[in-house]
Structures are given as C-alpha cells and as structure tokens.
C-alpha cells in the first residue's frame, strides 16, 4: 500500500470510529474553507471557474497541499449551468459569483390542502415550474429542458467526482458521502412557503402547517438516504428555522416531524449530521433526546454548556468562529482552537469544523494565514 493510500485508510478509520461513537486515534479535521474560497485564493475568477470547473482543479490541488485537513475541501459547490438551464429562482448567482438561496415562495397559502393531499405531485406539477421557470412550458419543451439541465448537472458532478478522486489519491484525503435533506418545517420554509410565509401561516393556519410537515416527512426521509448504510457518510440536515420561532411553536410545528425524521434515518442505519445554524441554546434538552451519536455541528452557543449537556451522548462539532480568522491575530486564533479542544476533546467524540463555511477571501489575506496556522495546530495537537 502506498503512503497516501495508508493515510486515506487511517483517515477513513478516524471517521468510522467517530461516527460509531468510538474515540478515534486523534481529532478528525475538516477545513472550514470550501472550493469557492480556494478558487479565489489562488487567483481564479469565481464565476468563471464554476462554469468551467477545469479551472478549479489546480486551485483545489494547491489548497489540499498547503492547508492540512482530513476531508477534501470542496464543500457544497453548486455549478451554475444546471440552475441557469432550469431558470432557477431558488438558487442564483450573486454579483461576486457566489451561488446562494434567496427567499422564494413556491406555494400560496390557499394551496395547502392540495399540497397536503399529494405533496410530491404538487411539487412536480405546480411548485417546480414556479421556482425553476424554464419548466413552466409545455411537456415536450419541459422534457428537453430537463434533459439539458440534467446532462449539465451530471457532467459537472462527474468532473467534480474525478477531481476529488485525483486529489484524494494524491493527498490521502477522504470524502464522506452526503445525502442532503431537511427537517420538514425547514423544507416548507425554504422552498415551499418562504420564511415570511411560514411565519404568518403558523399563526393563521396552524393545523395546515402541522399537516404539511407530516405530509413531506416521507419525502425528506427518502432524500436523506445514502445508497447504502455501509458507505462512509451521513445524512446531512442544515437546520434553519427553529431559532426564529417561539418555544411553543417549535414544540408544536418543528420538533415532532424533525425528531421522527432523525429517528427514522438512524433506525435505518444512517449516520446523521445536523448543521445547527444560529442559536439553539434553548433547545439543548430536545437535541439530547435524538438518537445516540447524532453528529451536531454548532454555529453558535456556549461550547462548555453544550459539551456538558450533549457531549457524552452525541458527536459535537463546529463552534470555531471563522470571522475571527479575518479579524484576530495568529495567537488569538490558535488560542481559540486550543480552548475548544480543551473543552470538547475530553468527551472523546469531537470533530473539528468551523462554525460556518469560509466561502470568500478577504482583502487583508488574514483569513488564509490564520486558517493555515489553526489547521496545523489542530492536526498536531488534536488528541483526545
């Protein structure tokens, strides 16, 4: 076995141990910066390199070489061809080239009953053409649009897969597979009714909101499944709305189907990673109830309190404040990493990740310098 193959094997074992609740040999490290960051850092134009991913490969290669990490630093890149061919409103490119999800509404409040009766049909027939406007046409043209978009999507992802395989082979990195899904209430907010819409619905038509969450639960389960339970990976749920609603609303609308979803995925043998966006400190007792070894990447909160409440049962990650890399000194940045290791590592299930993803470079260049120093520090000192 070559050195890099052995290294990849060792890294895979780190994550297999971590995900099964066994203390790994050392703290696994994921570089919080994504391919978008690497593209800009190594001087490529972000918009252009996303259209022509061959321009991203040398950036990715250098990035893997210069910034220590255990997992391939690609992140959730969204090549724009697919979205443009579909006429997407749900995912669009900003002027700086970064693909993002603006507030969209795929369904009007008076349509809840139809949605609840047959959510999949309603999504395909009514919501998709609203959010992906090129699908708003006759069936023949729609078939052509879908064929073109899917071809572009498959081409881009095939290239990303090959590029990933090449850097993994060269640097001994691993890429846990990801099946993206959402808590039912989040799915309703993000793509169906909008943040604004759902905030009014839960006061005006609460029973319909609950029924809609139940209706999409089977779809969210299906979407969260990896091809098999043996592969290294996880179902990934970026959690969105809970911090923005009252506790009583959380208990009534968000929690019941979210809990069922995580339990069903765990029961079926999948690891589950939650990206716990914003402030969930008032919901820690709920998070405790989720199946053992749920991976919880935190954006916000008091790491000490989270570790005490959840550290024995669950796999805790995140918390490293990436904006500090831009504004802090090298010493402050390393001190913060040390502080988190001191709090988390004693529980034996800590995974080093950022509180958010780093998607852009900054003018001063501090982010890159400090990021490298922090990654080197955690790689060397990440013992349990």
């Amino acid at each position: 076995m070559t050195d890099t193959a052995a290294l990849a094997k060792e890294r895979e074992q780190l994550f297999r141990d971590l995900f099964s609740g066994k203390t790994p040999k050392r703290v696994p490290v994921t570089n919080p910066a994504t391919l978008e960051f690497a593209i800009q850092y190594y001087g490529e134009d972000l918009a252009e390199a996303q259209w022509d991913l061959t321009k991203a490969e040398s950036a990715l290669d250098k990035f893997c070489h210069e910034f220590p990490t255990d997992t391939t630093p690609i992140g959730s890149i969204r090549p724009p061809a697919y979205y443009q061919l579909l006429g997407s409103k749900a995912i669009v490119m900003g002027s700086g080239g970064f693909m993002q999800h603006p507030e969209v509404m795929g369904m009007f409040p008076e349509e809840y009953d139809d949605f609840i009766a047959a959510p999949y049909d309603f999504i395909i027939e009514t919501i998709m053409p609203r959010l992906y406007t090129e699908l708003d046409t006759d069936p023949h043209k729609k078939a052509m649009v879908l064929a073109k978009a899917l071809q572009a999507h498959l081409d881009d992802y095939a290239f990303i897969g090959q590029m990933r395989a090449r850097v993994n082979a060269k640097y001994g990195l691993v890429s846990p597979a990801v099946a993206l899904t959402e808590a039912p209430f989040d799915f309703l907010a993000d793509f169906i009714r909008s943040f604004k819409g759902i905030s009014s619905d839960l006061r005006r038509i609460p029973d319909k909101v609950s029924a809609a969450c139940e209706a999409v639960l089977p779809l969210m389960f299906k979407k969260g499944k990896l091809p098999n339970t043996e592969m290294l990976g996880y179902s990934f749920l970026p959690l969105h709305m809970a911090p923005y609603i009252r506790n009583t609303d959380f208990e009534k609308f968000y929690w019941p189907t979210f809990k069922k979803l995580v339990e069903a995925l765990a029961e079926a043998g999948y690891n589950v990673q939650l990206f716990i966006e914003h402030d969930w400190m008032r919901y820690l007792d709920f998070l405790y109830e989720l199946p053992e070894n749920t991976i919880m990447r935190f954006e916000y909160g008091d790491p000490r309190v989270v570790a005490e409440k959840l550290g024995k049962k669950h796999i805790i990650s995140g918390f490293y404040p990436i904006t500090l890399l831009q504004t802090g000194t090298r010493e402050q940045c390393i001190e913060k990493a040390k502080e988190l290791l001191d709090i988390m590592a004693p529980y034996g299930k800590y995974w080093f990740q950022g509180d958010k993803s780093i998607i852009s470079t900054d003018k001063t260049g501090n982010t890159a310098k400090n990021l490298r120093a922090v990654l080197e520090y955690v790689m060397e000192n990440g013992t349990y």
Partner: protein
Amino acid sequence: MDLQLLTKAVGDLDEPKVLGMLKEFAASNPTAEETAAVVSACQKGMTIVGDLFDAKEYFVGDLIFAGELLSSAIAILKPVMGGEETVNTGKIILATVEGDLHDIGKNIFKSMSEAAGFAVYDLGIDTPPNAFVEKIKEVQPQIVGLSGVLTLALDSMKNTVQAINDAGLRNGVKIIIGGNPVTEEACKMIGADAYTTNAAEGVKICQGWVS
C-alpha cells in the same frame, strides 16, 4: 375605540382583533386627529413587540409577522389618514451589500424602523458601494444601514464604508451594520459606527442618533 386595548392587541400580535378594531374604526368616519391617535397606538404596540423580542419571548418569525400586521393595519387606515405629511423621525438608506442576495433581516429592520417613524430608502439586494454613495447625495440621510448574511458581506461592507469616505460623505452620516456575521471586531474593521444582529436593538440605536 379603546386605544390601550388596540396597543395590547398589536403587542399580542392578535391579527383578527387588531384588524377587526381598525375596520370598525375606519368605518366610523373618524377625524384626522382621531386617526393619528390610532396610528400612535399601533406604533406603541410595535414597541411592545420590540420589547418582547428583547426579552426573548418573541423571535424573528414574530417580527416578520408583526411587519405583515402593520402593513395590513396601514392599508385599512390609509383612506382615513388625511393628506398631511407625517413627521419623520429621520432618514435611513438601507440595503443588502454587494455580492449578497439575502434580505429577510433587512426587511425586518425596514418595517420596524418605518414603524418607529423613519423614512427608509431601500436599495434592495446585492447593492454596489456606488449606489449607496449616489443615494446619500440625493436624499442626505442621517443614517446608512448595511445588511448581509454571508461572511463575504463583511468585505463588501468595508468597501461600501470606504466608498462613502472617498466621496467625502462619511462625516454626514452614521453607519450601522447588521446581520449574521457582524461582530464588534468586524464593526471596527469595517469602520461602521454600530453593529447589531438584532433589528429591534438596531432601531433603538438609530433613534438614539437622531434624538
């Protein structure tokens, strides 16, 4: 019309009650003075909403609904409001900065500052520094609000403040930044006067500046 009851209903975000009371009021052919008192009672109700947000009894979703409620209320009251201009607390130019398309936080801040009597000039999303500069020249606001969710917004905020500086307009305005990635350190780095991740607090800061 029991104004205290109206204020309480707005604070409770009791939409059927608020809209019911206002429709009845509008149908009673009120004077401009009576209408002004009702508008003021609604504004007091919005202050309660802000206080409950500070007390962590309400959250962002409730603020969004409060904005909806206020728009419905104003739609009912407009026909009986009379023609005279309402006195503005001050002028704010507001936008999501360049590169960022997120506007939920900006819109909440907008509806809350309008409820507090500010005239808000909303430049939308993904707004280049130059657009801020031009609008400042045009309307001469006391306050400029920069909003963003993505971390890349921090650099855009810095560029925007720099552009305002370069245009010689910095001394005439207070600048507040808001959104998920802003911190005290980011505020210093950007050169803004204040930062907040809390729209209600942001409105209070702005009120402090113009009082």
